[in-house]
């Protein structure tokens, strides 16, 4: 985890989404360090866990974690977002080993995650699918289609981690978790900076239904 600060700095500058990236840093580290079965040597294994960064904005934290875990060389971060770099301000799965989806436009990752979980289930695989969304991203109506479907289909190998930094323009009165609970998801809301709490919530089994972990972090500063 200490390495991340240096890796993060290699890629930061005037990045306007810097705070959004920082909001995801602890969740990403816990997922890659303690929860998911994803390593540089199994990126093509059909039984690997899948991590889908739906909120593709501010990917520096994601890139820093991937570099720290050896998916690509740290020096790749130095000239990110330049023409020849595989690392852009939104990630492209075709260019970066270990990146499961290309994202940037909000509201796509959860639907892709439902399809991924259905595909793995159809093939009899038990790999997990974890989708990271932002609280602002949940404004997109496409998420509602996917949330309902995951609940009705009982996708118990699907986990959504919703980073809540209070960035949705009209808020989510009463909290994010209850939007999922009404569709029969298991829900837990934890401190998004508390690694042990995140680990416990993200590693928990939730038989018969999908789970959302709402990771609350400090309000986004504009």
């Amino acid at each position: 985890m200490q390495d991340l600060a240096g890796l993060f700095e290699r890629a930061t500058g005037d990045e306007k989404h810097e705070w959004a990236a920082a909001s995801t840093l602890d969740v990403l580290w816990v997922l890659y360090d303690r929860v998911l079965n994803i390593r540089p040597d199994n990126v093509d294994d059909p039984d690997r866990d899948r991590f889908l960064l739906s909120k593709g904005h501010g990917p520096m934290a994601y890139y820093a974690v991937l570099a720290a875990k050896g998916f690509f060389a740290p020096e790749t971060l130095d000239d990110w977002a330049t023409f020849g770099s595989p690392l852009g301000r939104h990630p492209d799965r075709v260019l970066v080993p270990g990146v499961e989806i290309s994202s940037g436009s909000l509201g796509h990752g959860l639907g892709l995650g439902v399809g991924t979980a259905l595909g793995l289930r159809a093939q009899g695989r038990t790999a997990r699918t974890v989708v990271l969304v932002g609280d602002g991203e949940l404004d997109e109506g496409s998420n509602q289609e996917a949330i309902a479907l995951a609940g009705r289909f009982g996708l118990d190998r699907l986990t959504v981690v919703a980073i809540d930094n209070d960035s949705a323009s009209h808020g989510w009165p009463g909290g994010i978790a209850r939007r999922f609970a009404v569709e029969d998801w298991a829900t837990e809301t934890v401190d998004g900076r508390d690694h042990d709490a995140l680990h416990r919530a993200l590693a928990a089994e939730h038989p018969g239904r999908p789970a959302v972990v709402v990771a609350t972090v400090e309000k986004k500063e504009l």
Partner: protein
Amino acid sequence: MTSTVKLMRTVFADTVIDALDLDPRLAVVTADISATAFDEARARHPDRVINLGIREQAMISVAGGLALTGMLPVVHSYTPFLVERPFEQIKLDLGHQDVGAVLVSIGGSYDEPAVGRTHQSPADVALLDALPGWTIHVPGHPDEVEPLLRDALAGEGRVYLRLSARENEAAYPAGGTFTAVRTGRDAVVLAVGPTLDQVLDATSTLDVTVLYANTVRPFDHAGLRAAVAASSPNVVLVEPYLAGTSAHEVADALADVPHRLRSLGVRRDMEVRAYGTAAEHDAVHGLDAAGIAAAVRQAIS
């Protein structure tokens, strides 16, 4: 080919249901429309025949997710709900993810004008043509559907199969190249999909070549060049969707050949606020035999 009494939609369902039993890679994704046609298949393959309810954005995203796990999704709905409503999902969740899918629409441009503009989608081919990597088939007869579909199901690319209730009397080969149905000296008329019979009617007394296409992307440049070389550089393009959708392909095919092009199709300059029948709408767009004949006569004059 022998004729069949099946609708294109029925041939589609029968072919996919048969293929599902043989290929564990295949999945079917629907959003209620035609879902009952797959009831028995869903009972046999509950994990691979998936009806999502009326959720078209999820329909494409779920297909993208299935494809990311190595499966080939077949996605089906009425044309506007398959192509227009979830267009960004098609761009990003299929194209940008670099995964394959087979999209199969019904309804054509205006198969059922009585249901109004909401159920018309004359821009579907132009929209998909705006994205890289799509193969586009426009069958004009139910017997063309199965070979086109089986080819798509055996691959892993992005394929759009545009089905219609409108059809020609006869079926033609489905090999990706244009078929010369008639040869003549004064013009080359390229009829796409279900426009063929009206083109043949319109040109029955004219000395023109009639080419038939049931695959428009990729576009058979060599076939058009050969036909023009053997006939005339007067080209009339007749498409059952937005006028001029393939005009840029004709221009590319004939880039070094001085030529004239007239593009017929669904008008771009107006929304037809009328119900009625498909034949009545053909007349508005100049896609009836009289309209096509007038355009061809003008082209060769």
